[in-house]
């Protein structure tokens, strides 16, 4: 909610002169054929949860092998497949679909629209995803194994020196990209064209703003990923030489093209998180979000800056001094709007009247831990020191802080926040608190020591390490197993909540403001078929 304005609903009920039936259809085909944003949102979220566990399972394999020095469980090539597919699944199968799922569920309701602008395309956007991931996962069973070149698939490791699963990897990434692009188009058209009358841009909830900006980022960079992955395919199978020096190409060119996509991609994975936190904190502080306009401008600045920092992933490639300085300065600059957002959240809390329900607990954890990830990011931006951090566990620590305690925690915060709206039931608060505390402790046991082993010199993407890293790796692995197990609690909470629980009101949370809190809980299958009037 952008400000404490009252929303007046004209009418909610849809039992007037519509032809289509009320409520949801029954049976399995409901899910296959649905064009309903709530159904599609649910499918995205459940799919993402499944992928989170599959990707998480791979992480467990990684941490099991790294529990002790020496090779105990897997061979080095399979280990590389695990790190590769873990990354691909978490980025493209867990985090992104979860945010799209939340967008599908919440954006139409937040702007007073009856559904997404392009409901049938919405169905396709979802259903091609299981197909894409099936291909990717099955490629692990090919003779010679699955993709093993890291989720960043640098050439020529991914071209001349890769196995035949590369073709399937490329195909799979293309499909994921198409899904994201279609989803982004849908989000933009929905937000531009379907806002209820009176809902101007600067009255939209911040979650809607962050998703609007994210959608533009997706439109801009997913096609570049498609280009990169196509060039890898043609270099490998069709004798092109984009990245092959022998043919006049350059392997470093791959990195430029990939990271031109790759850097905005990580902002794609965090901006919706910022939006979620910006919804939750005001609710539980019982105070409006501080600096709404600044938050919008800061988000837009982050998005724009994200296009000119890509080579900070490439400081060791042999870049000339001028390039290194440019990218160092621009990268450092991004911390300004990001810091502004953190200050604004704290200012929202300041002199509020806070309560600490589970969504708020996850949000507070987000603010602290994401900021820690931000600090390591700032350290990484300093080029001469990056030479010591690059490709070590310091980087692994950084991005897991911003992606797990950042993006994933925000998704869980959003899930806990909106589950009562989706299901009509309050979740089991005891179980949820246990999930929170176990996750909070274990995630830090898992990722914090990675800063130390990275600084001490442990490279990333290695299946075995020198003995001085052994103690910390053992601690990290224990944290990993604990974190993985703790997530089962989340599944239990979600399952129980769908099945039943204490009935909740429309508003669910005292202090919650916005159109989504004006509709009943659970939200009816169709909402805002007649647009509400916004004052």
């Amino acid at each position, binding site marked *: 909610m952008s400000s404490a304005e009252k929303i007046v609903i004209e009418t909610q009920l849809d039992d007037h002169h519509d032809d289509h039936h009320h409520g949801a259809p029954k049976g399995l085909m409901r899910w296959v054929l649905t064009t309903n944003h709530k159904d599609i949102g649910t499918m995205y979220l459940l799919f993402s949860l499944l992928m989170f566990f599959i990707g998480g399972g791979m992480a467990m394999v990684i941490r099991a092998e790294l529990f002790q020095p020496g090779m105990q469980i897997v061979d080095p090539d399979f280990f*590389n497949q695990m790190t590769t597919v873990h990354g691909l699944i978490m980025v493209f199968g867990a985090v992104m679909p979860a945010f799209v799922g939340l967008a599908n569920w919440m954006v139409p309701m937040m702007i007073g629209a009856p559904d997404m602008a392009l409901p049938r395309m919405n169905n396709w956007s979802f259903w091609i995803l299981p197909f894409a991931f099936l291909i990717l996962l099955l490629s692990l069973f090919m003779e010679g194994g699955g993709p093993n070149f890291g989720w960043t698939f640098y050439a020529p490791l991914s071209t001349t020196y890769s196995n035949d699963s590369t073709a399937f990897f490329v195909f799979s990434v293309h499909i994921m990209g198409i899904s994201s692009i279609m989803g982004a188009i849908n989000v933009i058209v929905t937000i531009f064209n379907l806002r209820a009358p009176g809902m101007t841009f600067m009255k939209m909830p911040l979650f809607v703003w962050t998703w609007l900006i994210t959608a533009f980022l997706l439109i801009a960079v997913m096609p570049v990923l498609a280009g990169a992955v196509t060039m890898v395919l043609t270099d490998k199978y069709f004798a092109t030489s984009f990245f092959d020096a022998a043919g006049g190409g350059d*392997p470093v060119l791959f990195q430029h093209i990939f990271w031109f996509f790759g850097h905005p991609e990580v902002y794609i994975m965090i901006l919706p998180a910022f939006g979620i936190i910006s919804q939750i904190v005001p609710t539980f502080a019982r105070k409006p979000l501080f600096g709404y306009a600044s938050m919008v401008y800061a988000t837009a600045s982050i998005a724009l800056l994200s296009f000119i920092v890509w080579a900070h992933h490439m400081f060791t490639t042999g870049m000339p001094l001028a390039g290194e300085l440019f990218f160092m300065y621009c990268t450092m600059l991004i911390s300004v709007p990001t810091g502004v957002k953190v200050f604004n959240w*704290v200012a929202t809390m300041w002199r509020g009247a806070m309560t600490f329900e589970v969504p708020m607990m996850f949000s507070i954890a987000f603010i602290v*831990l994401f900021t820690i990830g931000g600090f390591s990011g700032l350290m990484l931006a300093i*080029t001469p020191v990056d030479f010591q951090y690059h490709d070590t566990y310091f980087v692994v620590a950084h991005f897991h802080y911003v992606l797990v305690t950042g993006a994933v925690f925000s998704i869980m915060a959003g899930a806990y926040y909106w589950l009562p709206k989706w299901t009509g039931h309050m979740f089991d608060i005891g179980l949820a608190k246990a999930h929170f505390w176990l996750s909070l402790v274990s995630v830090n046991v898992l990722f914090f020591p990675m800063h130390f082993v990275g600084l001490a010199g442990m*490279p990333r993407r290695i299946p075995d390490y020198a003995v001085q890293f052994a103690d910390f790796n053992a601690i990290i692995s224990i944290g990993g197993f604990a974190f993985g197990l703790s997530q089962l609690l989340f599944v239990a909470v979600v399952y129980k909540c769908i099945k039943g629980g204490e009935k909740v009101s429309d508003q669910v949370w005292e202090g919650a403001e916005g159109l989504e809190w004006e509709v009943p809980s659970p939200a009816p299958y169709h909402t805002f078929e007649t647009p509400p009037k916004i004052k």
Partner: protein
Amino acid sequence: MTGKQSSWLLSAAVFANNAVAEEMPLNMTQGVTDVSANVYDLHMIIFYICCIIGVIVFGAMFWSIFHHRKSRGVTPANFHESTKVEIIWTAIPFLILIGMAVPATKTLMAMEDTTNADVTIQVTGSQWKWHYKYFDHELEFYSLLATHPEEIANIREKSENYLLEVDRPLVIPVGKKVRFLITSDDVIHSWWVPEFAVKKDANPGFINEAWTRVNEPGIYRGQCAELCGKDHGFMPVVVIAKPIEEYEKWLAQEVALAKKAKEEEQKLLAMNMSYEELMEVGEKAYNANCAACHQMNGEGIPGVFPALKDSPIALGDVGKHIDVVVNGVPGTAMQAYGKQLGLKDLAAIVTYERNAWGNNTGDAVQAAEINAYLTGN
């Protein structure tokens, strides 16, 4: 993280400078060059600034969480914007960043100045080893992981420098500017020695430059820092820095040895080694170079690395077998060992592979046959 935890971290960082760091390495090394010391200082400055900001911001937040709680009966305020405040907390971080950028720029400019080197060394990364060539001398050699496969397989106890030891380390002089010309023979690798603060990618087809001037004699260990395939974690970098007189002595010795080895190889071409000698040398060389993939028992890893035991190549035509070892198999992980190993080792390995694990062909391959392959006869 609470303010308390932040100060713990600060103390931890302070401790990290002490001997405590030897057992539980918490922090980056200060290294043994002026550059590495600068880099370390920069790292610590940025870290402290982040800690301070963290303490202030999280302090404010947790103070608020404690005091501005509904359960304390407070009424929430209603303010929700202030342009003045927004400007202040945009400007101050911006100024802090400028403060960070100035020393960072200075250090970076110093690092990028490769002129006036005393020694130039060509560094070539390949799957999965390094090759060093002294530009101004007839001395070049491969540098492979020396850790025994049984340590990796948890059969033997791990040594102190497990995974950080090589058969032939690079040797450079102390106090002189050493310039590295880095490239790759196949995929992208990265040459990294933490104590020099030198990390530079090895790109195939292109050269990159880096330099260092080591202040203290010693042995310095690093690792490949760019995923390069299966054994990315098993191609360490070991550099020994010797005082200049020792270095020159070592260099002269090695150049002479290399010359002698070349002459011996020429002599070897006219000789025959006994079967027993070939098998003994072959087993050692096989374990050092081939067992990582094909395993010590010759059984390989099904679907990934072919077995040599009962393999048609080891049991079939000798020429084809030599070709595979010398030239590798393009498009697979089987490297070309012709460049990497001497004639004696190559002959011994082929002999060993043809007779070990029950293969028992009875073939003894001589250096001259290998040489014939290498020179295209």
